[in-house]
Structures are given as C-alpha cells and as structure tokens.
C-alpha cells in the first residue's frame, strides 16, 4: 500500500506573542463597548442618556430630597403653601420616614411590635445558616425553619396564647404581610408541587386525572380571581359569623396557586431525566419512593432551579394582588397612604412607589443571586 503524504509538518510553529493588552481596561472597553461602529454608536447613545438623566435622578432622589419633616408642609414649595423654593421637585423621604413603621408592620399595635420583630429575628437566624452550605445540621435547621418557626410565628403574631394580646390579622400589613404570604406560599408550594407533578406522571389513572384537573383548573384562572372568590364570594355562602379569617383564605389561595405552577416546573425537570435513570433504579430493585427520592428528584430539581426561583420571585411580587381583597401588603399600604391628607403633596406618591419598588427589588434580587449561587454549586457534572 503506497502512501502519498502530501504534507507533513516537521517543526513547531513559532510561538506567538501573548495578547498584550487583553487585561487592561482600555482593551476591555474596546472589546465590549467599541467593537464595531454599531457598538460604538449604541455606547455613545447610552452614555449620553446616562449623562443626561443620571445627575437629574441623583439630584431628585438625594440632593434635592427632603429628609426631615413631620407633615406635608415639609415637602411643599412656597406656591403650594410650604417653605421650599418655587419649582422645587425632589423625593420626600420625610414621608417614608414618618410612615416607615406602618410600611413595615401595617397597623400592628405599636406597643406589640417586638413580636413581629422577634419573628423576623428568628427567621433570619434560621434562614442564614440554612442558606450557607458549610453550616452543618441541615436537617434540624430545616425542621426548625419550616415547621417550628411557622408555629412560633403563628402564636407570637396572632397572640391569644400565653397571655399575649390577640392581634387580629386585619391589623397586619406592610412588608410583614408580603413576607408572610410569600414565605408560606414558597414553603407550601414546593412539596405540594412535587406531589402534584409526580401524580401527574403517575400510572394510576384516577390520581393522574385528579392532579391534571387540579393543575389545569388553577392554572386556567388568574390569581386575582382565586383571591376574589375566596374573599368576596366564600363568605356569602357561609353563615354570618362563621367566617374563615381573610388572611388565612389569602394564604390558602396563594399556596394552591403557586403549587399548580410549581408542579408544572417540576414536571419539566422530571421529563428531562433520561428513561435509563428510571430503568437503572428499577434494575437495582429500588421501590418507587426510593427511586424518586434518591435517583430522579435530586436530578430533576437541580435542572429546574431557575424555573423554581422564577416561580418564587413571581409569587413574591404577585402578593401585591391581595390589595384587591383589602389586605394591605407593602405596595397596598404605600398606595393607601396617598389618601392621608396629612401627607398629600405632588411628590409623595412617586416617593412612596420608589421606596416600595426598591424594597421589592432587594428581595427579588437577593433570591435571584442566591439561585445563581446554588446553580453553580450543583452544576458540577454539567459544566460546559
């Protein structure tokens, strides 16, 4: 067999010089901002917009803003009956400051505020070690956070036990309500969602039908309808005086709603697991429970973490809808405060909304960053 090799390299290629300025700031700017004339144009436009608006925004938010004051006159111009120069416009942080306790706790009795504060403290003390992978005893931690804390919080916040004054849920409000509803929704929706997803993929026809029916029914109506039904129509069908607490109704509504969405996210993960994994588990003689908990679910949930967190974030923001049933979450209570004639000014609504938006952003951004961290940590086998 005659071989005709037309080209054989017989020496090493001369080593090129390393890219000189790749790590310099200048190179970064050229690569990322001015790579082509289109990029350059966009960069220049974006910069121009920033240069034009950013100082204005900073001025409005901080420099011209009013930080201290006890009523609306602090944020009014001379034309409007206040002290500030005509044409002034800026954030009225004095109003947020004055209303801060209310934005956090609603009408919770002011002499009982240690109760929600204690619950918040316990929550942070249990959540932080739970979220840090290095801290040991995750099982005990989860038990305390997910079972013990809700019970303690129930007793502390609602009262009526151990000589604690009863504080009815109609007095709850603000960020406290937002966090309680989201926490309960998150804690309830994950296990219920997993069960629904497994049920939907089950081979038992009745179970399957029930799960499909539940998921599709709940997903087929908007959350606002669920809340509205629970709040407005349910009481009319009950004897007067036998009302289930409105807050509880909202919690149930939000939980079942989130569960249905969660079920579909988890199902997406289950479907992505190759059939071989199921068969391998069967071949090992694992029963259904072991197969799911040891083989399938760990892989499936890992795959859908972005989807799960997406659902959590969406639900956190959806809690604002409880305003429609006269429960005042953070956004609701901020908007309700616009009606206080003690603080009506042209700038208070905008200031209040910016504050509410900022608080929502902190929480959503935190969740999103943590989920990115968890993904990186769990993604060892799939790194590309």
């Amino acid at each position, binding site marked *: 067999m005659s071989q005709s090799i037309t080209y054989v390299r017989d020496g090493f290629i001369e080593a090129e010089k390393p890219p000189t300025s790749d790590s310099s700031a200048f190179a970064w700017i050229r690569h990322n901002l001015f790579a082509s004339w289109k990029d350059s144009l966009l960069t220049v436009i974006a910069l121009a917009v920033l240069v034009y608006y950013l100082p204005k925004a900073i001025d409005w938010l901080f420099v011209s803003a009013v930080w201290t004051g006890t009523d609306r006159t602090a944020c009014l111009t001379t034309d*409007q009956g206040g002290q500030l120069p005509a044409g002034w416009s800026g954030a009225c942080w004095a109003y947020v400051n004055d209303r801060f306790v209310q934005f956090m706790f609603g009408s919770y009795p002011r002499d009982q505020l240690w109760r929600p504060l204690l619950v918040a403290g316990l929550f942070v003390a249990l959540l932080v070690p739970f979220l840090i992978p290095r801290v040991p005893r995750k099982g005990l931690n989860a038990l305390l956070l997910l079972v013990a804390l809700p019970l303690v919080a129930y007793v502390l916040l609602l009262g009526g036990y151990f000589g604690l004054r009863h504080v009815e849920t109609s007095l709850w409000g603000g960020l406290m309500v937002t966090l309680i509803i989201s926490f309960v929704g998150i804690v309830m929706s994950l296990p219920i969602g997993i069960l629904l997803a497994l049920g939907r993929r089950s081979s038992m026809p009745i179970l399957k039908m029930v799960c499909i029916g539940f998921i599709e029914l709940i997903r087929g109506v908007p959350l606002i309808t669920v809340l509205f039904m629970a*709040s407005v129509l349910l009481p009319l069908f009950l004897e007067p005086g036998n009302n289930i607490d409105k807050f509880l109704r909202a919690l149930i509504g939000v939980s079942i709603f989130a569960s249905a969405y969660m079920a579909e996210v988890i199902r997406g993960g289950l479907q992505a697991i190759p059939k071989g994994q199921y068969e391998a588990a069967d071949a090992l003689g694992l029963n259904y429970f072991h197969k799911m908990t040891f083989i399938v679910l760990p892989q499936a949930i890992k795959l859908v973490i972005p989807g799960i967190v997406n659902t959590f974030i969406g639900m956190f923001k959806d809690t604002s809808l409880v305003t429609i049933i*006269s429960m005042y979450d953070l956004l609701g209570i901020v908007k309700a*405060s616009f*009606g206080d*004639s*003690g603080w*009506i000014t*042209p700038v208070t609504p905008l200031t209040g909304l910016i504050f509410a938006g900022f608080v929502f952003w902190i929480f959503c951004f935190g969740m999103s960053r943590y989920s990115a961290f968890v993904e990186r940590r769990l993604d060892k086998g799939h790194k590309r």
Partner: protein
Amino acid sequence: MAKKIVTALVGAAVLGFGATASQADTLSDVKAKGFVQCGVNGSNLAGFGAQDSQGNWAGLDVDLCKAVAAAVFGDATKVKFTPLSAKDRFPALQSGEIDLLARNTTWSISRDTQLGFDFRAVNYYDGQGFMVKKELGVKSALELSGASVCVQSGTTTELNLADYFRSNNMDFKPVVFEAQDEADAAYNAGRCDAYTTDASGLYSIRLKMANPDDHMVLPEIISKEPLGPAVRQNDSKWLDIVSWAHYAMVAAEEFGITQANVEEMKTSANPDIKRFLGEEADSTIGADLGVPKDWAVQIIKAVGNYGESFERNVGEGSPLKIARGLNAQWTKGGLQYAPPIR
C-alpha cells in the same frame, strides 16, 4: 363591566341568602362582642377615611363610626376599622364581616333595594364637579364647550359627563384613563383643560398639583352623590342608632353645642338641649334607642358636632379646605337637617 358582574353576583348571592340575614340584631351582636366593626375607605379619598403614620384612623366617615361606638358604649375607642376597597365593601357588609359601612358610599335606590342595605342619614352631600386651570378664565362649567376633559374610564363619572355636555348642547373631548393616578398626572401635565370626578375628590387631587392655586373647582355640580352609612336591611334598631348618631352631631351644631362646651350646656335652660343631652329626668330617648342616656354627650365629647368634624377632616382645618356648600346646616342654605330629637 367588572363592577357590573360583581354587583350581579353579589346581588344574586344576597337574594339567595337574604333569609339568613333577615332577622339580624346587630345591636345585640355589637354589645356582645364589645366593639363596632366599621368598614371604611382604606385609600383614595383624603378626609373621609385614612390612617396617619401612627396607625390612627381619621376622617369624616371614621368620625361617624366613632360616634356610633360612643353612643353604644360611651367609649369612642370601642370601634375597629376594616379598610375596604370599592369592590369588596358590599360583600363585607352583607357577610357580616362589618357591622356598618361608612365608606363614602352613594345612597342609590339599587343599593337600598337590590343589594339589601338600608340607608337613612347622609353625612356628606357630594356630587360630580369640574376642576380647571385658572388661566383658562372659565367661571362656569357651561363655558367648557370644546374643552378636553380628563376622566376615569368605566365609572358613572364618565357617563354623567357625556350626559351633561349633551343636554347642554356642548362639545367636549374626553381624555379617558384607566386609573385615577394616571388621570391626575395627565391633568397636571396639561393634557386636558378640565378634570372631572366627585367634588370631594377634586379637592384632594388639587393638593397633588404642582401649583394648587393655579386650579379652581367650578361651582356646577352635575350629579347627586349623597354619601352615607349603610347597614344590613331589616335591622331598624341598628339603623336607628347609626342614623341618630349622625343626626346628634348635626343637632349639636344647630344647638351650638361643641366638644368644648358640652359640659356647661348640660345646665342650659333650653329644654330641647337638656332633653338632647339626657338631662331631663324622665327622658327615655336613650333607652328607646337602646343606648345609654348620655349618648349624645358621649358622641359630642368624642368627635364634636358635625361642623367641628367637618372642619377638622375636610374643611378649613384640613389641607383639603372644602367649603360647607350643600353640607351646611339647613338654616344656612345647606342640606344637613336633623329631625327633632324629642
């Protein structure tokens, strides 16, 4: 549309369950639980129901709730407030969640009959009005022909507006917004010549304008909006107390009894006043009403007379600075008129 569906649903549910509510005795229930549960406005309307930063409720409607508590218990603090949105105020009253609805609710025949409520007293005579920029030089709504008018969509306000201009053979350009905030902002930015909503709302919106003194509320009122407390139908004892709590405030103003002088007025020579304040030995007014003898004294001590409450919440003593207008005493050209208390 949504409003209509809700009303229909609520109406249907009420008809179906009217029987359960017909024999209600709210007064006994209220006395048994020890407080009045009052549905108020949680937002939107300054001066009628709003919370200050300490969580205390204030407003004209809130004062009425306090007056009822003062009459029943002799203690105006025995009242709890449920902030309600426009949508769920009626079911809340119907389901027994609240004892009394004082949420700037217009008394209309359909609410009185179809929804199964009872109205009697009117604690604020409102009506739809117009606000314009002073620089337009308009002095009357009849000069608004051809104007663009900012209005919230889907409200009776929008329909009243169209009716008013058509019946006066005037043209107008409606600039319609879904939310009140948007309408406020648009008017403030000069997108329309005039703004229309209930007059009480116009005053609070004026406070949100960059320059309130550039705007004026026109004198014409184009619709009737008598706002008053509502209770469940077929409970006349409770309706009596709620209505007379309001009338007591109105009568106190007529008699010249104020929060400050109520103790001295007890010794007044005027038999009407003595009877009103429960100082006549053989008077059974309080007992007949089902409340303590000094009920009127307690009301006046708690919230003052109607004029005082008005000035404090929406009048000159408040940022709103609404004129008494229709809400003046009948002797001063208004409609506030308390039936005789004897």
